[in-house]
């Protein structure tokens, strides 16, 4: 298996990746732009775009910001509202796997930034039905979250005639260098279908076997092309205009707005995705089975490129967290009504056979040399970045409600505990 000589992404990255003559991946090459581009110029460009979208009648919002409460939400709202002076409407898709801390962070976001928020909570029985189908078809328990998060803001834009949607980082740019920052890529339904939804749109889930009819997927359907055109819906990504550094941004949000962090099962990052029982747990374990790597590799690659971690430190962390078993599997199985055997049976259908094989004991084992071998270290020094910071440490804040024991998903929470 081919690995990047600088970061730790392999050729099997699900967003796809290319390598150049030095064996460096497209993600690392595009990331180099972060240290070359004139970010002041780019920020001015962003200001100009936002200015043109300011509502002049006082009867509507200026823009929509999709939020989850975690993962860059605070920074995006802070930048758009406090720094750039826009009047945003926050929208959130209720992913239903909420932790107490996630509910608290979202409530705190709403209160601290003094924003209106619209929430879509789909009937949990429908969500379970959809999730059973996507587990079978794609081996994914996160399809409904991704579909909801990416479609609900667009639906709100069309319904309330708020044409601008502001997203944080474009994953295709940040992880694999799908586009240059200069391409100023915007939100497309094409990208959503291919990469967020793994090629399956809401309509494709309608299936007698899964007992899913038209009614069940109505909340996940994308507005018609003509509706988008009539309102002029556009989604822009802040990382094309602001030098993106998720870790530094979260740290300023912890300091200034009381963002709460937490330890996670399968990664060392304590900032992203702390709102969800499954993201860094069952979902990430599935990612490891399907693609041979987990969120920890994404975080390591990010830190290597931002010159805070060496490749060698990264490999240690990837080895430590990749095989970590999920802690919340039972919770998920109880929620969806499935046995552990059944879950593993389905998962095995989606195991990547380029990575896994059955050994003599009929257990799944990684193929030889799929994880880093000495061969992968050849030519690494030629393309190594010089580190700015010697240590890569993540802040762990004090839990605001230590007496509470997280035991089940919170569908709708009360919010903020002083």
């Amino acid at each position: 298996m081919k690995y990047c000589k600088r970061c730790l992404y392999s050729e099997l990255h699900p967003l796809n990746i290319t390598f150049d003559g030095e064996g460096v991946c497209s993600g690392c090459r595009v990331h180099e732009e972060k240290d070359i581009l004139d970010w002041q110029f780019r920020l001015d460009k962003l200001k100009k775009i936002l200015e043109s979208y300011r509502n002049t009648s006082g009867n509507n919002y200026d823009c929509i910001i999709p939020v989850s409460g975690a993962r860059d939400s605070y920074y995006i709202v802070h930048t758009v509202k406090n720094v750039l002076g826009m009047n945003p409407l926050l929208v959130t898709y209720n992913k239903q796997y909420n932790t107490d801390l996630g509910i608290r962070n979202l409530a705190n976001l709403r209160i601290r930034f003094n924003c209106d928020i619209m929430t879509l909570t789909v009937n949990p029985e429908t969500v379970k039905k959809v999730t059973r189908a996507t587990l079978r078809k794609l081996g994914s328990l996160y399809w409904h979250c991704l579909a909801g998060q990416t479609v609900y803001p667009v639906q709100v834009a069309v319904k309330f005639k708020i044409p601008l949607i502001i997203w944080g980082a474009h994953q295709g740019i940040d992880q694999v260098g799908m586009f240059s920052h200069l391409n100023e890529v915007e939100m497309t339904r094409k990208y959503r279908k291919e990469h967020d939804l793994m090629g399956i749109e809401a309509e494709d889930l309608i299936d007698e076997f899964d007992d899913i009819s038209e009614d069940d997927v109505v909340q996940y359907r994308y507005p018609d092309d003509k509706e988008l055109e009539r309102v002029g819906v556009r989604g822009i990504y802040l990382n094309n205009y602001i030098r993106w550094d998720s870790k530094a941004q979260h740290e300023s949000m912890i300091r200034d707005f009381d963002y709460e962090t937490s330890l996670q099962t399968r990664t060392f990052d304590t900032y992203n995705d702390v709102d969800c029982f499954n993201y860094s747990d069952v979902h990430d374990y599935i990612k490891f089975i399907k693609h041979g790597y987990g969120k920890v590799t994404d975080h390591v690659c990010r830190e290597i490129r931002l010159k805070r971690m060496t490749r060698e430190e990264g490999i240690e962390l990837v080895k430590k967290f990749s095989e970590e078993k999920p802690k919340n599997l039972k919770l998920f199985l109880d929620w969806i009504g499935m046995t552990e055997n059944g879950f593993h049976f389905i998962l095995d259908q989606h195991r990547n056979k380029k990575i896994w094989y059955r050994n003599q004991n009929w257990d799944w084992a990684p193929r030889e040399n799929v994880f880093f071998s000495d061969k992968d270290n050849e030519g690494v020094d030629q393309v190594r970045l010089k580190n700015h910071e010697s240590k890569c440490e993540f802040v762990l804040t004090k839990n605001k409600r230590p007496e509470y024991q997280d035991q089940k998903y919170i569908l709708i929470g009360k919010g903020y505990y002083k």
Partner: protein
Amino acid sequence: MLKKRIVAVVILKDGLVVQSIGFEKYLPIGKPEIALEYLTSWGIDEIIILDISATKNQLPPNYEMIRKASKKCYVPLTVGGGITNIDEVTQLMHVGADKVSLNQACLKDLTLISKTAHIFGNQSVVVSVDAILTDDGYRVYDYVERKTTKLLPSEFAKTLSEEGAGEIFINSVDRDGKYSGFDTKLIQSICENVAIPVICCGGAKNANDFVQIFSESKVSAAAAANFFHFTEHSVNITKSIVSKVTDIRVETHADYKESNFDQDLRLLKKEDKILEEMLYLRIEKEVI
């Protein structure tokens, strides 16, 4: 007069759609079937799939991939890359291609053009010529050997058309992925030398470049690859702008006729008054 065509080029490297920059840097985009599905629904006139790794890796065309990708493509589809003989052309036609694009095959042996034209008609043979600007003027570039040949693009194009080529696809190596606009001089030199339709490619940044090349040269079609991946409805928007000055086909329901654009031709916000009128149906207050 025939309508001008807006063409999308889908560049494939090892089965993956990529952005190509200067014939040497490649950024990963995704699956060919998704690219074709959306380009079609956005109202593109024609699609050209070019597999740039097949010949380099000495592989035949990937028929399965073309079969899968062409399922959602309802516009004329040209396929190029890895074609060396007439059997491969035949097989491509059977899996969904409407035309084939020949490049390397013609640098070595011109007879494949006439063979293909004889069986499938001249309209099915597109010959792709990569041109590079040297100190002595334009020359044909060999992308596999990564070498400039001695051939003059305009003269070579003439030979190709005499052999039976139905269309010439002229691509500028210098402008590939550079967004500096089409190379008018190069394109003009080809158009003047051949009587068959010419498709130009290389350098398009947005609709303005299409408008410009249609006004400055006699090309039948202009093509772009990378920038169609950047924004929602990129084709619909390009066509809405080009159609104001050039006669082209506009058939999508979302036609952006009422929209305005900024200097980079990105969508601008509609006036608040217009948006507000869309919001609710106005019902006058009842007066008794």
